């Protein structure tokens, strides 16, 4: 019985209540007081002290029914194009002018790179099927950080340990839903049993398609990747890269075969070169 999140970006209003609820419940510090210039997103990324992050993507004046190429966060791209759009403002929800908002979080992967990479056994899969870092065991080696295909987990060099979303392990143990899902005013973040959430999500996509939001699809449910299905998955309306998600997330070990082969071939080549050198020398 795996518990997880279904984050439906078509219901997100960008209020960031999830970010604040997460920091409040988990007592994480405020840590970044910089204006980023990335639309209304001043959080910028997930990290050791930021376990929910709302991304903002401005796509004004898209081609109707286009492939969703709106330039994210486009800045000063010429006056003439803008002038034309003035006479043709937005009609239709998620139509020509979009401001996409998406609350990102640890995916709690079925095949978690961080868990596989952890040499101390600090990272475990708990009774709710979620990936959890035990802070009293973590030694801060940082292997997990480079093993995560989503750039989620991060070592906090102030305390020497790796941190990420716990899916509110403590709240779940007391039968409560995670703080972010609790705080979300529009049910953009839904918490529950993953299979049930997936079913609900597929229905939702069908409904959106029927309403003309044909771009809607699920990320982290049915595609075949080395990380497997995501226990925190998303409903998106544009390509994953637009939300700063990898199109095909890949575990480091998925590349290992090729790497072994390359290493072997390199060793062979060096061996051959050395042998040639030695043999060549003897000939003289």
């Amino acid at each position, binding site marked *: 019985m795996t518990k997880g999140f279904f984050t439906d970006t078509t*219901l997100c*209003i*960008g*209020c*960031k*209540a999830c*970010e*604040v609820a997460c*920091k*409040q419940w988990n*007592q*994480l*510090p*405020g*840590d*970044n*007081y*910089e*204006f*980023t*210039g990335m*639309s*209304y997103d*001043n*959080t910028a990324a997930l990290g050791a002290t930021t376990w929910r992050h709302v991304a903002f993507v*401005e796509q*004004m*004046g898209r081609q109707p029914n286009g492939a969703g190429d709106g330039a994210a966060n*486009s*800045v*000063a*791209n*010429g*006056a003439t194009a*803008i*002038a034309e*759009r*003035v*006479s*043709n*403002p*937005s*009609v*239709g*929800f998620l139509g020509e*002018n*979009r*401001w*996409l*908002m998406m609350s990102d979080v640890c995916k709690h992967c079925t095949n978690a790179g961080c868990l596989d990479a952890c040499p101390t056994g600090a990272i475990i899969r708990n009774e709710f099927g979620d990936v959890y870092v035990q802070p009293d065991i973590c030694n801060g080696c940082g292997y997990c950080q480079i093993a995560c295909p989503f750039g989620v987990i991060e070592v906090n060099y102030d305390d020497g340990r790796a941190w990420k979303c716990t899916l509110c392990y403590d709240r779940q143990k007391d039968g409560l839903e995670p703080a972010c899902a609790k705080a979300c*005013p*529009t*049910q953009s973040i839904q918490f529950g049993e993953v299979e049930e959430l997936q079913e609900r999500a597929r229905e939702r996509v069908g409904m959106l398609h029927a309403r003309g939001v044909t771009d809607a699809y699920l990320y982290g449910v049915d595609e075949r990747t080395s990380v497997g299905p995501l226990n925190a998955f998303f409903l998106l309306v544009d390509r994953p890269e637009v939300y700063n998600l990898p199109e095909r997330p890949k575990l480091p070990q998925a590349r290992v075969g090729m790497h072994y082969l390359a290493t072997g071939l390199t060793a062979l080549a060096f061996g051959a070169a050395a042998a040639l050198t030695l043999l060549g020398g003897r000939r003289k």
Partner: protein
Amino acid sequence: MPGLGTSFGRGGATTAQWDLVNSDCILIQGSNMAECHPVGFRFVMEARERGATIIHVDPRFTRTSANADIYAPLRPGTDITFLGGLINYVLSEEKFFREYVVAYTNAATIIGEDYRDTEDLDGVFSGYQAESGTYNPTSWRYEVGEGGVPLRDETLQHPRSVFQILKRHFARYTPEMVEQVCGTPRDLFVKIAETLTANSGRDRTTAFCYALGWTQHTVGVQNIRAAAILQLLLGNIGRPGGGILALRGHAAIQGSTDIPTLYNLLPGYLNIPYASNRTFSDYLLVNQAETGWWNNVPKYAVSMLKAWYGENATAENEWGYQYLNKLDDKIDYSYYPMFFRMKDGGIRGLFVLGENYAVGGPGSKVERAAMRKLEWCVIRDPFLVETANFWKMDGVDPHAVNTEVFFMPAAWAAEKDGSLTNTQRMLQWHEKAIDPPGDARSETWFFVHLGRRLRQLYAGSTEERDRPLLAMTWDYPLEGAIQEPRVESVLEEISGYTVADGQQVAGFADLKDDGSTACGCWIYSGVIPAKGRNLAASRVKDGPGEWTNNSRWGWAWPANRRILYNRASADPDGNPWSERKRLVWWDSMANDGKGQWVGYDVPDFVRDKAPESQRVVGGKGAAGLTGAEPFIMQSDGRGWLFAPRGVKDGPLPAHYEPMESPLPNVMYKRQNNPAVIEFDRADNPMHGVDNPAFPYIITTYRLTEHHTSGAMSRWSTWLSELQPELFAEINPELAAELDIRMGDWVTVTTARAEIEARAMVTERMRPMRIEGKTLHVIGIPYHWGPAGVVTGDVVNDLIGIALDPTSQIHEAKVFTCNMRKGRRAQAIPSGGPHASVAEGGAIDRIGSEGAEMARFDEHEGAEPLPVERPAEATYD
């Protein structure tokens, strides 16, 4: 809220937020609901999921627009033209709900012969007095027949009927004019008009949501009047999924107008007496209406006086009427005149509670300078907000400021019991979670104990002037170590009781004018109908398949009605207009066959008054109205399309340009609201029309991440990091012109001030092409000041002060400015945020031991720093 009060009878939102899910269409204008009311916006989202069309009309593409089906841009300050265009469309295309309009509005009522419209007088209404810049409204009156009954023509053909006047008045508000004035593309405007009308009528309803985007204008009340007219014509008032939702900017702003912090009102919208109302009879003479609900004023006023003065209020001493403070008829006590008077040395002391004037008050330099003229000042707040530091802001030498400042640490909501009255007139009780830290105390504690100490000081005085203080009932029970007043006993007094036995009354129907009942605020009467039964604390939601309008969740005034004027949800005969929009109807079998109003809400009508009831000739109060007149607060029982009184700048809305505008008024010869309140002072320079030094339009607003002046958010690390710096939103075309890139510093100037901000270059802002001109609108949020975790310049310093004549609200939503790349002339020593703060939650809470003053002192010598008055506190 004079706009709604004049149109319908009560100054509050006509509906409940959760009822938006029943709407077929929701028009959000003058509000950025998703950002400023994110929790209430869930109902808009749910309506959208159920198939409703969401329309957002706004100068900026915001988080609300992102979730709307239709977004239309609009030049700031032109809402009346847009709404007027919709009214004209509804009238000329015959799309109004005729039966509703004829029966429930004053469309058929005939106006007196002396009335002249803006059409006749080129931009002013009759009664305009040019010397004083005010209107005498006597020529706007109804024409009355025998017995004072207004004359009507239900064919709507009489040339002086309200309907015909309306048609003539709005004829010039064409789609072409809308495009020309508002900059909204014609086709888009027509699409909105079609959507609204297709979703209104017997079977469908449309709701309107507005907020400060309509009120903070010199024509603010008329913006709301225009919406009221439109909703009445479409038959959307008093019906499920309809209504006008006034979104209030704070948790209890509705409460602070109901039990007012306003200068001119007593609790329950009774007027504060003027000095010219020498006796209680004089007061009643001007405040008691012949017909309609306000005929009951004596019951409510006497009961209030009994609550305040107890046994010292008797028939012999006019129930203590003379103990009340009276307003000088010649002095304007509203916010801005008060501060100007203070600045001129006319006020000695000031209490500041939950306000941060130094950042939040438009033209806030004036407020800061004014406070430095005070002898003393008491400030209560959890943090050392800018307003507590006015004596060392603006580069002044503190030695030169003679004001004695008392800072009293305040408790927060979670640290005290109490109720909040929210945007839908609903009281919700909250219980204390923890004790306040150290010396921090609740407002109730502060005032109850201040009152006790003052009474001790004056005890035994026989001076007549000390009588009001000593005559008060001031016996709230105190509890616990800090002697906290039992705040529920305050709500019990507000709800009302019988004097003889001290038992709670059931509601305002029980109140009497003979001194036998006491009630602190008649509209709240019934919230505690019996000791120990605090309905504000009730938390029962409707179950599946149940629909009572969540009547057991909290308690809403009046009488727990959730949708006001809901008699209008039934036709004149008392049957629902349609099955789909059934809410309240007449059940002739109920009540032992005598019949009564029943339904899914508390009927907003005399419960057993049959639809066919006739007016009692010469009848007072409700008896003066028929069984088919649903607006029971109005003297004629009808929704007012035309306001014969109550609004100071005309019976109908008309488009006037904002006080500062790059464009002349193309609608009328009058540039600005003829009745606007201006302050022609050296410290309040205005830009006028098309001032080449200030070519850009600018509008101010709030973000989800902060709360008004930031007094409750800039001390929280979690909120501060989400929006750490002041920024200005600029369209790419203007940015290219001025060579500004995302994140650059820009300086914004007006004749009042100069501030700097980061540039947010975004296509969500659009240049407007109007009259061959390209107009740029700059958007700027106003949450920052020089204190707190994150700091920034004070946006409200930019604003000039000119006021709506009825509500005395300023024009913060549109003025003009200039902009250039780079930082402002005097570099700010303390510009950026406190990068060193790496804590969680609120920092620098004052009141606990070792109150830290440090954070502000770090910035001493910093340039001017600014203050707030919750802009909303200004009440519409």
